[in-house]
């Protein structure tokens, strides 16, 4: 975007720089504190630097169980979201039925609602149905917003995919399954991949809904929250935070890269 070779005024550049610093400096601080020698409080400047917390974190079983749980929850919630989101997108974009717009709105609603509302709603629903809180209640909670992300990506792509492609496939002798395998999937594949990665990332760092739907289990974000309260080996939390940032960032970057030509990754803000 050029404005006839005119350069942005200095003040604007400074403001933009300040904005970006404000957004990202705190994240850098987390990285710095992961290597501090002081373990009781976050002291600035750090009195010294060490890499021993990497080892300490590696040896803590609670870190591993929280990480394992988060990965499992994120994987299964994403899987559920991929199946349900694709089916919902297919139904909404391919056929007309009574209440189609309502379904479309209801699917998107969990992302518009504050997480705390979703959390309380799910908790009371689980209580009412006398479902004990478990791994699966966390997965269900996460699936509510993961479905939205997959749905939004799939529906945008399906709308761009001409409906006559599917008819052409039927016309040429392909049944429903073959049409899905050879025509629909190749056309919405990258959208599903992008949606799935975003869903995974969202689930992986989710706190609020998890707080309400988890029993005794601790997902990684919940574990971190509790660690912050306890003044013991604080930098371990930072080491783990660093890992979370990387684990979350990579799929989001990949999703961005996969869908960069033209179509937006809708619904990425939870």
């Amino acid at each position, binding site marked *: 975007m050029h404005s006839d070779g005119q350069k942005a005024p200095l003040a604007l550049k400074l403001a933009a720089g300040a904005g970006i610093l404000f957004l990202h400096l705190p994240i850098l601080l987390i990285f710095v504190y992961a290597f501090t020698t002081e373990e009781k409080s976050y002291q600035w400047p750090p009195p010294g630097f060490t890499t021993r917390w990497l080892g300490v974190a590696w040896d803590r079983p609670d870190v591993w169980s929280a990480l394992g749980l988060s990965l499992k929850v994120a994987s299964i919630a994403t899987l559920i979201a991929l199946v349900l989101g694709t089916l919902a997108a297919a139904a909404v974009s391919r056929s007309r039925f009574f209440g189609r717009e309502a379904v479309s709105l209801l699917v998107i609603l969990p992302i518009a609602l504050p997480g705390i509302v979703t959390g309380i709603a799910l908790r009371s629903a689980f209580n009412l149905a006398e479902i004990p809180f478990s791994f699966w209640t966390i997965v269900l909670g996460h699936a509510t917003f993961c479905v939205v992300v997959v749905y939004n990506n799939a529906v945008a792509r399906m709308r761009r995919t001409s409906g*006559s492609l599917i008819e052409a496939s039927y*016309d040429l002798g392909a*049944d429903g399954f073959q049409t899905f395998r050879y025509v629909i999937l190749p056309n919405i594949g990258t959208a599903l991949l992008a949606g799935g990665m975003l869903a995974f990332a969202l689930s992986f760092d989710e706190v609020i809904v998890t707080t309400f739907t988890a029993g005794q289990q601790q997902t990684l974000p919940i574990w971190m929250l509790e660690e912050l309260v306890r003044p013991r080996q604080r930098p371990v939390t930072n080491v783990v935070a660093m890992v979370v940032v990387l684990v979350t960032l990579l799929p989001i970057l990949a999703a961005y890269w996969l869908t960069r030509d033209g179509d937006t990754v809708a619904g990425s803000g939870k």
Partner: protein
Amino acid sequence: MTAAVSFQNVSRHFGTVRAVDDVSLDVRPGEFFAMLGPSGSGKTTCLRLIAGFERPTGGTVSIFGERMDTVPPYRRPVNTVFQDYALFPHLDVLGNVAYGLMVKGVNRATREARAREALALVRLDGFGARRPAQLSGGQRQRVALARALVNEPKVLLLDEPLGALDLKLRESMQEELKLLQRSLGLTFVFVTHDQGEALSMADRVAVFNEGRIVQAGTPEEIYERPATRFVADFVGSSNVLAPPLVESLTGQHRFASLRPEKIVLSGAGAIAGEVRSHAFLGATRRLLVQTPQGALHVTLPSGAALPPVGTSVTLHWSPADLHLMEDAR
């Protein structure tokens, strides 16, 4: 003889809209059959009823004697050339053409050989590795044609296949399609809103309006003896004479059509009028003549003497060329 495609009292209603309303027709084997009509007249729905994308609300569709009531699109012995071609963007040209054989389980070597043959048939040898996006409109149209023909359908359905092409390309594709149909001996069912296309290509034409077939017959019958005012209006630019005028000429209180090229400006007097305008149409000129009973179009050969605008002329025609017809739409 079994009809290639047979409709018996077929209807297709969408809610209260009667897209197809009690249509019966027979397409003969090996025939080039055109379904002609304005948009929304039900012709495309009829095509989709043959392909199986629509199910009739009432009546029966049969293909070569077999009832298609419960047969899904992918088990029907027909293939379609879609209006927007519907080529698969993620496959190359060869992959597109071989798709039908691929889903039927034909091995790779065979299906690619047959796909190449089909591409040669539509004069696209050597285009196999290209993507649909890299082709021109005319080339895409040929790929769509090859993709349908490679499956050896009993009936080929064409949904306004020339609609997106420019005039020059249309004309050459019209001839090519006709030749292809002749040499393959295949039944073509062709949907178009272009009466010129329908008349020049088809063996028989069915004129649709408001979900019904208004008239079916050879192009000559449709053109020379339109059954109703609608047909006369829609097929070619005919003069439609109102009942009072026709009554004064023939004694019958009916509508009648009179082709502009059947009117001459010499001979014993019939109707007097004044020339209002000229239009140059290449081989012919079209005059608009205002008579006390209404305006009439007259087509004259370009070489003929041209009465200037504003002069009075008398219009003549042979009584046999005045074709009486129904008032119905």
